């Protein structure tokens, strides 16, 4: 019978223990690499989360609306026909969605759809005495709209409940309120593009992250908006949809377009610049984090290479005594893995500490606390990448050591 003595790991452990300083330096390299990798990725997750949170305060995951149609040539060029053309222009049709309740019901039945709510957008002038500013009023079903856009979180005075209870109530942006010098309880008159003027009661103020929005936007009940536009109660200009995973919104928009016959625009298409910026940020952070991890790998590679050139005699004698190439690979890969594991362990702890500390740091403004998040998948990814880099950094020099020709060493 044969015994399996783990002599390979015994040798690699001895190399580690007798070279504590080198081991520690190499491990520290991995520690910093892993910590930065996890930290930066956590930050990226936090940023992404925060920025989509901000986007979804004013943009629905998917918006269904009637797109403007362009006029076509009266007689297209066909065969020998002389084409009759006119200057293309917007066809003067209503932007009304026909039978919105049916479409809303239909959309609610779709899988992965969590919320569907109609909206009437009206361009208005806010008047108070002599001062007049232009803006837009959003006619909404406030309870549904609040679920979708989390309006309540931005309300600084009054409440959305007041809007629901007051048919001619208006929730004003703080910028509009300041310019009009109105406070909750005051009246304000608004005039629509159809020249309808209504006196509204200010029920509350909201403050978003964007001062331009605060200076122009207001929420009113959907029926009030319909009256402003001289339309009936079945008039709806947009239908806003929330889906389970907003990242997949573009997948649904085409389906919804076909389903409803109207244009369905997902938030990514509506905020292309923002999405591009997020992608750029993602690429940048990934490249930087991976390079740092790679540098840590080079640290292990260097130290292992050094150990191997110092131990070249040991390798030769081990091979002479009957150690196979893969035994030698195992000795040095194991050494690299132990160094890596020590580094990864400390690195993960350090990253956790950093993330924890930063997530409790207040940066102020609309952001509040530093947008960084604990995400298990990020820690796991850091661990896996760390192990892969360590394995690679160990295997390459170990392979070289395994191919040492003992005769050439003995004959020196």
């Amino acid at each position: 019978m044969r015994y399996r003595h783990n002599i390979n790991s015994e040798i690699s452990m001895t190399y580690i223990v007798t070279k504590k300083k080198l081991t520690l330096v190499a491990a520290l390299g991995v520690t910093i690499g892993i910590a930065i990798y996890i930290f930066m990725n956590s930050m990226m997750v936090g940023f992404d989360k925060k920025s989509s949170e901000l986007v979804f305060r004013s943009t629905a995951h998917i918006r269904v609306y009637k797109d403007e149609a362009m006029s076509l040539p009266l007689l297209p060029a066909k065969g020998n026909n002389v084409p009759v053309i006119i200057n293309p222009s917007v066809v003067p049709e209503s932007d009304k969605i026909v039978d919105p309740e049916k479409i809303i019901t239909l959309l609610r039945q779709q899988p992965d759809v969590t919320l569907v709510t109609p909206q009437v957008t009206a361009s208005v002038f806010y008047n108070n005495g002599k001062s007049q500013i232009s803006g837009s009023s959003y006619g909404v079903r406030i309870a549904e709209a609040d679920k979708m856009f989390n309006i309540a979180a931005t309300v600084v005075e009054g409440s959305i409940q007041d809007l629901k209870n007051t048919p001619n109530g208006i929730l004003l942006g703080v910028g509009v309120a300041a310019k009009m010098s109105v406070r909750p309880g005051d009246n304000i008159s608004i005039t629509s593009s159809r020249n309808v003027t209504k006196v509204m009661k200010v029920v509350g103020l909201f403050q978003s992250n964007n001062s331009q929005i605060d200076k122009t936007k207001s929420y009113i009940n959907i029926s009030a908006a319909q009256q402003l536009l001289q339309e009936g109660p079945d008039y709806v200009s947009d239908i806003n949809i929330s889906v389970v995973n907003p990242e997949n919104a573009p997948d649904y928009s085409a389906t919804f377009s076909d389903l409803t016959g109207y244009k369905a625009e997902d938030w990514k298409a509506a905020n292309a610049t923002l999405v591009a910026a997020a992608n750029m940020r993602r690429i940048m952070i990934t490249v930087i984090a991976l390079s740092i991890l790679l540098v840590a790998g080079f640290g292990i590679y260097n130290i292992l290479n050094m150990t191997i050139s110092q131990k070249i005699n040991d390798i030769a004698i081990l091979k002479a005594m009957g150690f196979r190439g893969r035994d030698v690979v195992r000795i040095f890969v194991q050494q690299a893995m132990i160094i890596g594991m020590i580094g990864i362990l400390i690195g993960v702890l350090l990253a956790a500490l950093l993330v924890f500390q930063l997530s409790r740091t207040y940066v102020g403004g609309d952001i509040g606390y530093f947008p960084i998040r604990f995400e298990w998948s990020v820690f796991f990814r850091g661990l896996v990448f760390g192990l892969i880099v360590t394995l690679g950094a160990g295997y390459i020099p170990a392979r070289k050591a395994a191919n040492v020709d003992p005769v050439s060493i003995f004959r020196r």
Partner: protein
Amino acid sequence: MQRELMLEAEKIGKYFYDPIKFRVLNDISFKVYRGEFVTLVGKSGSGKSTLLYILSTMDTDYEGKLNIHGQVTTGQKQNTLAALRNEKIGFVFQFHYLLPEFSCLKNVMIPALRLGKYSRQEIEARAYQKLTLLGLQDQALKPASKLSGGQQQRVAIARALINDPLIIMGDEPTGNLDSKNSQIVFDTFKQLAHEYNQTIIAVTHDNDFAERSDRTIEMQDGVIVSTAKEFGK
């Protein structure tokens, strides 16, 4: 008397390619039997060390055929040869090549741990036994690097013996030792060959050492001049 054949070289030839193609060994053929203490002698550049490394199976780039204890080793895979070296061949080199971070005892144990024929306790007991044979039982737990040159060479011999190999090969085993330690090493080899029936093949340029061995194979310019030079017998 019918003697057991331990090693047989048939028409072994080898080239060096650097700096120019050059034939270092030319049709080397000889046999070594069990219990023989054979020395390989010759001037510098005669090819004796090159031959030893071919016999050791570490150098596989040669022509001809090599047979160790009835097993043809020519053309075998590296892993097969490693296993063969582990079990059947012990090495003693000019520079002792102990692993300096390990104790003497551990150094002796390593080949046996690789082989895995015995349990760890048995291996340790056997390693003590080999060290005792070489008079080093008191040094067993010291790090190898703390010993004198002669002591280190004796530890290396103990290591070569741990798996009870068929053949012990030495490359200038006394080349780096003073005359007193050389004598000890020589006596050990002689004892191993005659009392324990071990086979020993050693390269040396020490004529005194060669003269007192059982048989000397003399080489010159890559060929064997004589295979049975028996001094004073």
